[in-house]
């Protein structure tokens, strides 16, 4: 932001396009562009443009980090604890270090250190080697002698809550919370394995429950889910005298660069992080992580590039997971549906690290004057959690949206009607209206009404997600003398297509086609961009992309104007040409105009300014927009009550993301959120053997993901919801589209069978048990 932050007043389109648009007045910094009209008036933004890197991906030309193999590269491999809890007495690497082909060995754990000398989960890193081939590295690992002293362990969350349970952490080793409250708040007390409670409250719930005509109460359980990125965690670290270059499958090149500079005492400008193709993250690849540090340390030690790549078993055991939760909800309401009190108690476990909260769905979705939430984290001797697609809110919605559904039934109110009464959001109201119509909600019958063994039902649920913005995001736009245009940032494409929407944004400003813009991203040599987590990438990157293009254009106009015998301020860029306003006859092609440039290249850099009218909250480099994101999802299921199989036949997902920039890519994103939510609802579970603490399904065969035959018909509607808060007014959709699916399916299963599935996943075993079909035997 310039020192002189003078602003001007502008009127922005405001409201939901399908309801009706008005205007909103905002103060816009003078160095930012004028309001962008609604999509209907735009040439490129809002259109279903093909992904700009699609051709490279469909031909196999895209290089992912797994494909990077510089000459002389060594192979790193990590030795991992076979025990869930053990003191490490000694690590002897002599034999490994002497093995032919081994170039370096390092100890990760530190024997007899109270914090670093204890392995706290099966799979915890103990040591690492770098060798001339994977086979040599694997053979060398087998030669490392570790003296483990087994300790008592606990891998069940309920058992871990007992006061006499084996203790996973002490105050010294327990991971610290964070002032932002994510993943866990700072300074929460630790008692045994329980950290917390983290309490949020408003009003007086005792009074609220006393005022209630009806109270529903329920307990819910959600399982531990693993990310299952197709491309594993992988890094190629190349430590050289003149600097460190790292290729990494990462969701945040700029962040990793900072972490590297700090961890290895390097100036920022000697650290470079690069990623081209990136095979999925879903929250698990946001930081440098231990494996990243190991690769860099090995590279420094060997003076050679070192690749550390996790195999699928390591991915399942030590690359992060979504915490499992237990929740108890009580909701009190008056006869007309208005809520009087909500009480939430939750325990969640993310293994040895991270918070296991259930988010802010119960607290913030609906109007309710009295609320109390007490969320606890429970440590167990299992692999550490990592943020996973809408952390907290995804499990939180499973419980809360079912409780609301239950309340609706108790009040004899349609679930949509109840929400119409208690939900203050006009956006979600419109989403409910559209979704209900599309799914045929009017045809919904009473629970369990279908006669046959196969019973059908409809259910719905909503999502709420705070609209994150990364304020320290920047972007450069360059126009070259031959007419080529580039947009550059360190931001990375993790599959969401950020490059395409940035190109569309720049193309819109310059009057070009999306394919005329060369996208150069995924490299910290370029202006530092945002992370690709928190559904913040589009919101963070497209405003500076527009602003940078808008700032560089006047220079082009200035240099091209003489050739058109016009003043620079009379020029516009449209339809691939630079033309004089209101004089169609006087124009030249964009390339021709660029040929007038004095130098080979002009450019402008812009950074993400504050949302016009300010943010709701600012936490360092991150901020929350004033309006939340959300959606309403409706599911149609068929439950075979004789086999317990739940088939999801159709999902209607109505979501909002501010201004939708690319409907094609947005539809893909929503498909992804829905399918991940469906898979979470029905199939996935990290299963630990209780006697040994080991994950029994650390693979893609017995850890079950929804496949093509489980895929329902998915109808996606994305609202245009203009708020006039930034140069593009565009926000994210990845997480909001993942939150409501599981509860929508659970509510549909209730409608189909009359039985409420309070625990995930809804396997045939669970459904048959809930239906009372399993004989009890003596």
């Amino acid at each position: 932001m310039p020192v002189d932050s003078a602003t001007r007043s502008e009127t922005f389109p405001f409201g939901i396009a399908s309801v009706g648009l008005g205007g909103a007045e905002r103060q816009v910094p003078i160095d930012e562009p004028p309001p962008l009209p609604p999509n209907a008036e735009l040439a490129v933004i809002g259109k279903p443009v093909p992904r700009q890197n699609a051709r490279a991906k469909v031909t196999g030309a895209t290089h992912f980090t797994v494909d990077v193999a510089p000459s002389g590269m060594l192979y790193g491999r990590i030795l991992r604890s076979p025990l869930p809890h053990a003191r490490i007495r000694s690590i002897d690497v002599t034999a490994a270090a002497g093995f032919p082909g081994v170039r370096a060995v390092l100890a990760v754990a530190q024997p007899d250190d109270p914090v670093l000398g204890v392995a706290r989960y099966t799979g915890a890193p103990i040591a690492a080697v770098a060798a001339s081939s994977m086979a040599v590295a694997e053979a060398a690992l087998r030669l490392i002698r570790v003296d483990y002293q087994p300790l008592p362990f606990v891998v069940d969350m309920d058992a871990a809550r007992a006061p006499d349970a084996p203790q996973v952490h002490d105050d010294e080793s327990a991971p610290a919370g964070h002032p932002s409250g994510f993943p866990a708040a700072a300074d929460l007390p630790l008692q045994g394995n329980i950290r917390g409670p983290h309490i949020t409250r408003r009003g007086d719930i005792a009074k609220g429950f006393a005022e209630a005509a009806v109270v529903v109460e329920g307990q819910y359980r959600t399982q531990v889910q693993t990310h299952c990125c197709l491309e594993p965690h992988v890094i190629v670290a190349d430590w050289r005298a003149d600097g460190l270059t790292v290729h990494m499958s990462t969701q945040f090149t700029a962040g990793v660069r900072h972490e590297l500079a700090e961890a290895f005492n390097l100036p920022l400008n000697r650290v470079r992080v690069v990623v081209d193709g990136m095979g999925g993250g879903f929250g698990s690849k946001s930081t440098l992580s231990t494996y990243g540090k190991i690769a860099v340390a090995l590279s420094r030690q060997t003076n050679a590039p070192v690749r550390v790549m996790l195999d699928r078993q390591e991915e399942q055991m030590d690359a992060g997971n979504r915490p499992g939760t237990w929740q108890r909800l009580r909701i009190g309401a008056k006869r007309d549906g208005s809520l009087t009190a909500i009480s939430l108690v939750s325990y969640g476990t993310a293994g040895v690290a991270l918070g296991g909260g259930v988010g802010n769905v119960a607290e913030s979705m609906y109007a309710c004057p009295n609320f109390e939430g007490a969320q606890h984290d429970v440590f167990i001797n299992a692999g550490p959690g990592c943020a996973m697609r809408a952390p907290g809110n995804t499990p939180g919605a499973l419980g809360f949206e079912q409780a609301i559904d239950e309340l609706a039934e108790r009040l004899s109110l349609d679930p949509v009607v109840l929400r119409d009464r208690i939900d203050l959001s006009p956006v979600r109201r419109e989403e409910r209206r559209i979704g209900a119509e599309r799914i045929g909600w009017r045809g919904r019958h009473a629970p369990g009404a279908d006669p046959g063994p196969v019973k059908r039902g409809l259910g719905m649920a909503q999502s709420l997600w705070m609209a994150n913005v990364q304020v320290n995001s920047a972007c450069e736009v360059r126009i070259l003398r031959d007419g080529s245009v580039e947009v550059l940032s360190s931001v990375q494409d993790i599959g969401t297509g950020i490059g395409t929407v940035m190109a569309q944004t720049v193309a819109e400003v310059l009057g070009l086609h999306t394919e005329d813009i060369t996208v150069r991203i995924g490299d910290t040599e370029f202006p530092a961009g945002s992370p690709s987590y928190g559904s913040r990438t589009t919101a963070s990157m497209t405003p500076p992309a527009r602003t940078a293009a808008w700032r560089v254009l006047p220079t082009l106009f200035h240099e091209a104007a003489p050739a058109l015998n016009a003043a620079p301020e009379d020029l516009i860029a449209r339809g691939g040409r630079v033309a004089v306003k209101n004089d169609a006859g006087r124009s030249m092609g964009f390339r021709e105009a660029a040929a007038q440039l004095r130098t080979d290249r002009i450019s402008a850099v812009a950074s993400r300014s504050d949302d016009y009218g300010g943010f709701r909250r600012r936490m360092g480099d991150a901020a929350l927009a004033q309006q939340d994101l959300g959606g309403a999802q409706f599911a149609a299921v068929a439950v075979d009550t004789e086999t317990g199989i739940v088939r999801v036949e159709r999902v209607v997902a109505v979501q909002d993301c501010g201004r939708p920039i690319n409907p094609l890519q947005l539809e893909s994103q929503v498909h992804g959120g829905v399918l991940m939510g469906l898979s979470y609802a029905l199939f996935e579970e990290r299963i630990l053997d209780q006697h040994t603490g080991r994950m029994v399904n650390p693979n893609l065969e017995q850890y079950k993901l929804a496949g093509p035959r489980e895929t329902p018909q998915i109808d996606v509607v994305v609202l245009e919801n203009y708020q006039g808060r930034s140069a593009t007014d565009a926000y994210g959709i990845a997480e909001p589209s993942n939150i409501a699916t599981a509860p929508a399916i659970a509510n549909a299963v209730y409608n189909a069978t009359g039985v409420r599935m309070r625990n995930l996943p809804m396997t045939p075993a669970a459904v048959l048990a809930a239906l009372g079909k399993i004989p009890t035997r003596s």
Partner: protein
Amino acid sequence: MNRFAWINTKSVSEAAVSASATVADLMIAPSIVSNHGETSVVKAGGIDLLDLMKEDLLAPERIVNLRDIPGLDAISEDPNGGLRIGATATLAAVADHAVIRRRYPALADAVGGSASPQIRHVATLGGNLLQRPRCWYFRAAEFRCLRKGGGHCFAIPGENQYHAIFDNQACAIVHPSTAATVLVALGATVELTDAGNAVRRILLEEFFVPPSRDLQRENDLKPREIMTAIRLPPLAGDVRMAHLKQGEKDSFDWPLADVAVLLHLSPDGGCKSAAVILGAAAPVPYRAKAAEQALAGRAIDEAVARQAGKAALDGATPLAKNSYKLPLFETLVRRAVLKAVSGPSRG
């Protein structure tokens, strides 16, 4: 995977001579060597072999390739009206075979619905029958379970949701082959050939070995025996069949339960005799005798099929996490019986 030498054999006897042990033998006693002084196993499609090796459960010094042996994959009609399926015929070839689809559709269904197209193009029917169990304790080298020569079964006190509901007191594996469920119902035999080209024939049902007879092998394969063919008997009279399975997912999943039903009907439409075989229920394909008796001599309708479904679970001893298989099998047996009886005769 460990380093190994590769032998591409051109005849069964060559392969039998080169192999030192069965896979099961080698997993128990990793140093059984061949005449050449090395441990060696045969490979057909290699799907199960590579999986076991990648999991560090098996490290043969030599692999003897059967895939290129001419004629070993041939599918041909027997003069007696039955069918001879070469052991290295791929699952895809079996599922797509016109005679199998017409005459033994339950086998085509079971095989064609197994795994994925990719696996079916490589995996062989012989390998499918000989594959080792999918029990997740068995498949993890870190668990030294009974079947691998260790001290106890981890599944019985542990995570046993996918395990056996019959004959599960010692070892709780389920036999992993869906094709086997149907082949046992069909009364198939297997041919085993040794290094001297001697051929042993045995009913598939007897080839599979329960834990009470052998805790560490699922079948009767002897060292230096190569499975060379699976033979289907001819179908005489009015024969109806069906195969049903149910996994947690329909895409690429192991079944929670599968059922093969073979009915011999008399001219008046009543059932003369029945075969009801349950897969994923026991360490071997499980013959539900009580269900077969419930069908024999009856005219099959919904009520009779229901009785058969109930009878099929007689004597079941579910474990802590798998009693859901009882109602599931009951349903699948009933539905398979009705599907079979309502289908055309294949005889």
